[in-house]
Structures are given as C-alpha cells and as structure tokens.
C-alpha cells in the first residue's frame, strides 16, 4: 500500500469516527425533541434554550463548587426535569386545553419561553462566552493500526467518547423505561391515542408533564456533555433547536431508536460532506437528507412514528 492511499484511508476513517462521535451528541439532543413531538405533537422551539440552561447550571457547578461536568449530570437531569414539567404544567397545558384554530399557539408559547430564557441568562451571566475548562477537554486517545505495512493513526477525543457512551446509555435507558415500566407504557399509550388513553384511566395531563420533563432532562444532558468541548453564551440555543428538528424527523417523531439513528446520520452526513464535498454547504447536508427522507420515507428512517 502506498503512503498516499494510507493517508486517504486514514482521512476517511478519522472523518467517520468524528461523525459518529458527534452523532452521539446529536442523538441526545434529538431524543428529547422526539419524545415531546411524539407525545404532544408540538414543536418545542425552546429546546435549544433548555440546553443552554443546562449548560449554565453545569458552568455554575463547575466554577463555584468545582463539580466535574459528568458529576453535575446528577444535578442537571433532575433540575431540567422539574423545569420542563413546570413549563408544561403552568404554561403549555393551559393553552393546549383551549380549542383553537391552529395548535401552533403552543409553538408560539415556546418561542416566548425561549426569548425569556435566553435574555434572562444574559441579564444574569452577561453575554460573555464562558467555558468549562476541565483538564481533559482536549485529552485524546491515539490508536495506531498497521494496514498493509503502513501505519494509520486514529485519534479519539475523550470528552466526545464519554458523551457518545452516555448518549447511547441514556437512549437505551429511555427505551427500557418506555417499554418496561408502567409510566413508560402510559406515555406510549398517550402518544398513540390521547383520548383512548384518557378513557383507559390514564391521567394524560400528568403524562404530558412527565414527557416534557423527560425531554428537557435529555437535552439538558446533551448540554452538560457538550460543555467541556464547547462554549456557553446566552444565544447558543437556536442552531441546536433546528438540528433537533432534523434529527427528529429523520428518525420519525417519537421513535427512540430512530432519534439515535437520526443523530448518527446527521453527524456522519455533516462530517463526510464537509470533507468530500464542501465545508460551506456542510449544514445543508442535514437539511437535504432531511427533505429526501421526508419525501421518500415520510415516517422516518425506521418507519414507525409512534413511541
């Protein structure tokens, strides 16, 4: 094998690795959105802002009491669950109860919530970029492989690797939760047919609180895992909200395995596209895949649209 070919193989493998690891984080962002969309049929435009809130909690825990970001997951998950459930209970549910021309007024409500959250964050923390400078932020694991007499050196970023593992773990836990527990089954029933679920004696309102809480907690986890490798500022949410849409629809609304797959597809599409086609159009790949999937596989990559 020539060194040039080995170089090309190394490039390709490294790009695939980067795409998959990034995809793990994307999956986590998408899981929360998918759950909320699957059960409530609403588009949560404050999704990225909830992630921002989680990032600031992680930041505070780290800078004030030196809590490692991975440990602060134990603070962030319950905190975001409560915030999410509270938003659902006191703001979104009252609006959902009203018969309206378009259900989109709930969406607008989430726009309002997003504006308030990001601007409150700016008042409290200022607009400065903050980061969580952990010692292992650029820690990298190298792996040299010998292929046909040439050494191919692959690198794995430690925080991305951890984020990937936790994302897959949380996805699996959610899958089990929805499949094996009573509350999980009630969530699925509500997603399939809200009225029927109510007739069966399920307190569907409570289920919506729990669902929104879970969705917020999941995107919160993504925020915490992103904190060591990224940065935090009040207006960070927007781009992540639109990524979450793409992932959700790629995977099918409310489809857990689909959301994980959707995140991976988006991560891979972005990284391969940026190297082999054009960096400028990197973000377009996600959208193009998205539209193609919508047209040809309207129920998402895995075909089913219920939880």
């Amino acid at each position: 094998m020539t060194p040039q070919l080995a170089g090309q193989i190394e490039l390709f493998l490294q790009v695939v690795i980067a795409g998959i690891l990034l995809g793990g984080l994307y999956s986590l962002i998408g899981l929360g959105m998918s759950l909320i969309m699957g059960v409530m049929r609403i588009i949560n435009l404050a999704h990225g802002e909830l992630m921002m809130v989680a990032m600031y909690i992680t930041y505070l825990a780290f800078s004030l009491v030196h809590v490692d970001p991975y440990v602060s997951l134990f603070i962030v998950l319950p905190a975001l669950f409560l915030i999410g459930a509270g938003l659902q209970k006191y703001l979104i549910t009252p609006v959902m109860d009203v018969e309206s021309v378009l259900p989109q007024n709930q969406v607008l409500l989430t726009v309002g919530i997003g504006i308030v959250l990001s601007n409150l964050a700016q008042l409290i923390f200022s607009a400065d970029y903050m980061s969580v400078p952990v010692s292992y932020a650029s820690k990298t694991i190298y792996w040299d492989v010998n292929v046909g007499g040439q050494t191919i050196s692959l690198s794995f970023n430690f925080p991305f690797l951890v984020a990937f593992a936790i994302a897959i773990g949380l996805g699996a836990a959610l899958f089990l939760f929805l499949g094996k527990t009573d509350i999980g089954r009630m969530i699925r029933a509500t997603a399939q047919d809200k009225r029927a679920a109510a007739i069966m004696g399920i307190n569907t309102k409570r289920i919506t609180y729990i669902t929104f809480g879970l969705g917020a907690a999941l995107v919160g986890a993504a925020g915490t895992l992103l904190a060591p490798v990224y940065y935090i500022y009040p207006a960070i949410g927007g781009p992540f909200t639109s990524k979450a849409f793409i992932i959700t629809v790629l995977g099918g609304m409310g489809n857990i395995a689909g959301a994980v797959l959707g995140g991976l597809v988006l991560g891979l599409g972005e990284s391969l596209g940026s190297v082999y086609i054009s960096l400028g159009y990197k973000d377009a790949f996600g959208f193009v895949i998205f539209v193609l999937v919508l047209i040809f596989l309207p129920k998402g990559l895995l075909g089913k649209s219920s939880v």
Partner: protein
Amino acid sequence: MRKTFVAAVAALAMTAGPAGAQEKVVKIGVPLPLTGAEAKFGEMEKQAYEMAAEEINAKGGVKGHKLSFDIQDSGGKAETATAIVEKFVSINKYPFVVGEYSSQCSYSVAAVAEKYKVPYLVVTGAADKITQQGWKYVFRLNPPSSLYNMGVFSFFETVAKPKSIAILYENTDFGNSTSKAMKEYCKAKGINIVLDEGYQAGAVDFKPILQKVKSLRPDIVYMVSYLMDASLLMRQSKELDINPQAFIGGGAGHTLPEFLQNAAEASEYCMSATLWTPQVKYPGAKEFFDKFKAKFGKEPDYHGVEAYAAAYVTADTLKRAKEWTAEAIRTALAATNMMTAFGPIKFIAWDQFTNQNRMETLVLQVQKKKYETIWPKDAASAKYVYPVPRWRDRK
C-alpha cells in the same frame, strides 16, 4: 455573578427614573448590539465608552459640558440600528453618531447618516465597502479588513517565506473579506493555496476538515474565526497532531483574552494578525488595559480599545468644533490628528477609501500563555518563534 445581576437591576431602575440634569450635558448617540449573538462585544464596547466618558468628565468634560453617550441596543439587526439612528437624528437631534459593531449594521447606519448629513464615526465595522462609497459624513477609526493582514504579509516576506497555505474562514462578511485579501496576496506571491474553505460560524466539530488539512501538509494554516471557533480549531488541531510551520489567525477570535483560557495549551505559539495589543507603545494603552481589567474584572481586546479611542476622538472633535452642529462637527472630525491608546488617528483618502484612518497592523504570538507582539520588529515585545515546535515535541 451576583454583582452583574444587581448592576442589571440597577441599570433597569436608572433608565426608568428621570435623570437629574443640573449641569450642561452634551449627548452623543451610540447604537450597539447589547442583545443577541454579538452582545458580548457590544457590552465590552459600552463599558469602554462609559469608562472613557467618566475620565473625560473627571478632567472637566468638553467646553464646560459633561460628555454623555446615549447607548442604545440594536440587537445586531440592521433595521433596528437604522431606527435608532433615525431617532438620534430626528428626535434627539444629536449632531454626531458613533459606534455599532458589525459591518452589516455599521453600513446601514452609515447610509442613514450620509442621507441626513450627520457625521458618523465607524468604530469596529471592518468591511472595506463602508469607506469606499465616497461618503462625506462617514469616517472610520479602525483599518478596513483588507489591511488586517499587512503585518502578516511583511512577516511572510521577511521571515516565514511559506510555500503553501491552507485557508479556513468563517463565512461572514468579515471572514470573507479578510481571507480574500490573503488569497490575493498568496496568488500574487506564488504561495500555493492547498485548501480554501468557508465554514458556518458556531460549528461543534472541525475535526473532519482539519483532518483534510493535515493530509495536505501546508506550511501555514491560516484561519479567520470568531472567538470560540478559534479555540476549537486550535484544540482540535492539537488533538489531530497537525504540524504546520505556524498557525496564523486573521484577527478577531485569535486575539481575544478568552482564546487563551479556552484553547489553553493548544493556543501556545499560535500567531494572529491584530490591530492592537496591550504592549503597543501608544500612550495610555497599558493604562487602559489595566484599568479596564480592574474595573470590570475581564480583559478588553482591541474592540474595547477601539471604543475607548472613539470616545476620545469624539471629545477631541467636540472641543475643536466651532459650534455643535453636524456641519461644524464634520469639519472638525475631518481635521482630526491625534494620538490615542489605540494608535494615531487621522482620516485620509487613498485608493478607493475616503475618510479612513490608516495604521500599522501587528502580528502577535502566544508565548507562555500570554500575547506577545512579535511583528513588526520595532514594535515587538518578544522575539517570534518560527517555525513552531511540533505538538508532540512540546513538554
């Protein structure tokens, strides 16, 4: 944290209450992005304007008047910036407008100012076109973006003499025009451009494209980035063990204090074009840096000093103006010839530019976690390290 919150509440209370105006005040309108994605820089500039105004007023103000900047939030939106200036001109009747941050908004404000014949001093908007319209009332304190690289070019010619270069830039007005100047230079000098890609600001992962850079083995990796992209690019370059002769930034992100914190050891030996460093030999530069840091608990970058200098140019112009009308202020502004903490300010015309300040741009390098000026030689605070050591050879 708590302090900023209290300050925010206090600011709220202050804007609501009537200002007790016993003394004579001269007010100058300043639009700035205080919300939205650009708010960080807007905030820093606001603090710099206010700090300068305090100093000026402590020394007796301007012709017996207290100088006050009416700073309004444009949210980084062109139509809001326009609205603010329309209000400054038609309702507040301010004879002079200063500020804004982005090229987009600065350009829109400039068009309005020119229309109403009110002098406008651009402070940070860098796109060349703003002072290439032949406008009479628009002046610019900062150099246009095509000149940001002048220091780097002279460094290339005297020291580096690179043969190949990879160019990565943020796909914004600033990124485009700065990297365009670099590309034209490389083409003229026969430097091989092995990669030329624009990216969307705010990407999470640059590893794929950096991997491609690595496989192309350029002498120089040149990047035009905002704050965090700059840190991510350097951190991930270190991870991927990319070893060019030097990493050079095109200003902005690679020159900010936060870059040192966020990129940490990955920032070491990174160079960048810059307009200003605290070590420049202009009077008041270091004093400004130290005072700002003590007062606000964070280090200012060149945006801060640009705003600070703009405040002094404003005071100087008002002092020299025969009367405080737009026309007299314009005449005085055009005759400006002064030294500031940012450097000498004088508005001249050359090539297609009019009313444009021209100044030397510098090259800095991170050495031992500090920014040192390395080029031009007579301004240097430390000797350059070139080529930079390979990542794995560092301790």
